[in-house]
């Protein structure tokens, strides 16, 4: 249960390789697509901007898109890993446990009642929705004497997802404003987003990621079980509270920028665990890097699936995620 990369040296090498791959992914995301971009132009767009179409595409579309994919992928993957440690349920992830759809619902409600002109409103609505869903699923899943059983918390998550997504379409149909725009956003996509939204939530994402890495040792304690953790001097309630806040901030920020993107939070933690093992000090950074990679490459590849149209990256990750989910579900012990 210690992953393919056994020694610290190998693990560090794995992290470096993942980082290199991420840089390649960033480059691919900027250069490849309907309009091919020459690396030279990409540099010029920032160093010697001349207002040409190509330079505009680079500055307003390609580069923001690549950066958003990186941030969202890293956030969702780390949020998933933390949730899995928190609930000790291998299926926990922001999309299956209703947190993404809760954030999406809050966003749609806010956009219907007021407007989404203010980016700050977008972010706070998203955080509030994510927090609401997290609290509801947690409360629901832990009701009763036997606590949080995997089946209870998973069904609670799926019921909350069903509730939020049908309420979301209800609000959309009643409101009817900017319908197709919101529809595209609801599938989860990193296309046509502005850099401003990213910059607004970036401090929260960066802070949450750093906090997560910093408390990786405490997360390790928690995954040994509450009693062991307490015996070893861990303040479990505090750790859990901090983890919950981090998860809500990461998932909420991702939804605010890119809409609800499914399965990154379940695929990447499992892949990373297979590589570097269950130690969160290695696992969480690996999740961040691989999560960014998944979204970068999935988004770049998706540009070539439907000719002339954009396939939202949320769809691609959902299709990649299914075999993983099935494998994880099949590995569960017979009840």
């Amino acid at each position, binding site marked *: 249960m210690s992953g393919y990369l056994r020694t610290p040296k190998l693990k560090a090498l794995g992290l470096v390789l993942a980082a290199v791959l991420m840089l390649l992914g960033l480059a691919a995301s900027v250069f490849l697509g309907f309009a091919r971009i020459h690396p030279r132009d990409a540099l010029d767009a920032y160093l010697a901007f001349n207002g040409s179409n190509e330079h505009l595409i680079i500055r307003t579309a390609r580069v923001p898109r690549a950066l958003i994919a990186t941030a969202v992928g890293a956030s969702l993957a780390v949020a998933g890993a933390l949730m899995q440690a928190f609930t000790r349920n291998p*299926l926990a992830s922001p*999309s*299956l446990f209703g947190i993404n759809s809760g954030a999406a619902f809050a966003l749609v409600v806010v956009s219907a009642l007021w407007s989404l002109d203010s980016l700050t409103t977008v972010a706070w609505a998203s955080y509030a929705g994510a927090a609401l869903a997290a609290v509801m699923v947690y409360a*629901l899943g832990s*009701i*009763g*004497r*036997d606590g949080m059983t*995997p*089946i*209870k918390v*998973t*069904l*609670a998550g*799926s*019921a*909350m997802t*069903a*509730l939020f*997504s*049908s*309420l979301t*379409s*209800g609000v*959309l*149909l*009643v409101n*009817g404003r900017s*319908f*197709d725009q919101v*529809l*595209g956003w*609801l*599938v989860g996509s990193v296309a046509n987003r502005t850099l401003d939204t990213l910059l607004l939530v970036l401090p929260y994402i960066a802070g949450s990621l750093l906090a997560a890495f910093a408390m990786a040792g405490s997360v390790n304690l928690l995954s040994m079980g509450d009693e062991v953790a307490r015996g070893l001097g861990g303040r479990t309630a505090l750790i859990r509270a901090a983890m919950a806040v981090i998860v809500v901030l990461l998932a909420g920020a991702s939804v605010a920028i890119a809409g609800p993107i*499914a*399965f990154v939070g379940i695929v990447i933690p499992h892949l990373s665990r297979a590589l570097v093992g269950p130690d969160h000090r290695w696992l969480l950074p690996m999740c961040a890097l691989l999560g960014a990679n998944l979204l970068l490459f999935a988004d770049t590849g998706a540009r070539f699936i*439907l000719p002339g*149209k954009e*396939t*939202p990256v*949320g*769809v691609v990750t*959902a*299709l990649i*995620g*299914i075999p993983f*989910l*099935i494998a994880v*579900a*099949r590995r*569960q012990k*017979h*009840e």
Partner: protein
Amino acid sequence: MSSYNKQAAGVPSLSRGRRRFAVIAGLFLLLIAAFLVSTGVGSMYISPLDVLKTLLGIGQDTHEVVILQLRVPRMLTAVLVGTALAVSGAILQGIIRNPLASPDLVGITGGASVAAVSFLLYGVGTMSIHWLPLFAISGAVISAALMYVLAWKDGVSPLRMVLIGIGLATAASAITSVLLISGPVQQAARALSWMTGSVYGTGWKDVRMLLPWVGLGLPLSALLARHLNLYALGDELATGTGSRVQLYRFLALGLSVMLAGAAAAVSGAVAFVGLMAPHLGRQLVGPRYGTLIPASAMIGAILVLVSDAIARTAFHPVEIPAGVITSAIGAPFFIILLFWASRRR
């Protein structure tokens, strides 16, 4: 869910039998009342008495068109959809032996949605709309078969089946989104409303489309009731009492999928009805399928009728899909259910 099994094994007594009959008769009257009231509400209010008069052919001419051409077929569709989803859910809960299962949570409805949306977007020009139920049912069959096969590993465990079903439901909704985005934009609103589950705009053709499936499904499920009762005791006991467990389980799953698929073909995914109706039914008439199926069927019909009436009037003049209302009722219901399930243990 041991209490669930024990309940099913309970011996019925005479007084219970009489009580069950009274409950079923009461549900029937409630269904009639719900039908008359919900036929009357809408942009033009007509009192239940006038609705009844018009149905008997002694009402005003002005009401006749609204009621007979617009309202009644829609209400009949709601009744048939509710019935189909409720019976489908009751059977599925019996087979999976898990009271939390329902066709929408485990992706059966999602599979039907994928097939139906692709038909609506790409097939309608070349094929008659009458093929729609067949497509939806095939989609439901494929996702149910996938769920069963993928959950098989030295037998099917309920947990694995539910988890894989939830995954399939997520995949199905992703595929549906791709179809919506890649298809004609102007149909997206209609398709979204359809996906949320709505009987908006249904007419006599929908009633004609759905009636054979429900008309066939109800008697068949009554025939299977005895075997479904036995499943609650566990596979070994059921085999011991002479039931051909594998064969009848297969038939029952097929029936459940057929009903859910047919309902989805007409109304889309009306969520939580397949979960709620059998539970309410079990509370009222107990777990034996002979009475549980008719009771659930009527509760399901009432749920969809009432939800549709609320959906039509709550945000007037805008209509929201009935599925939004059933979710809004269903999710809190589900919470209570989880609470019960964990307390009984």
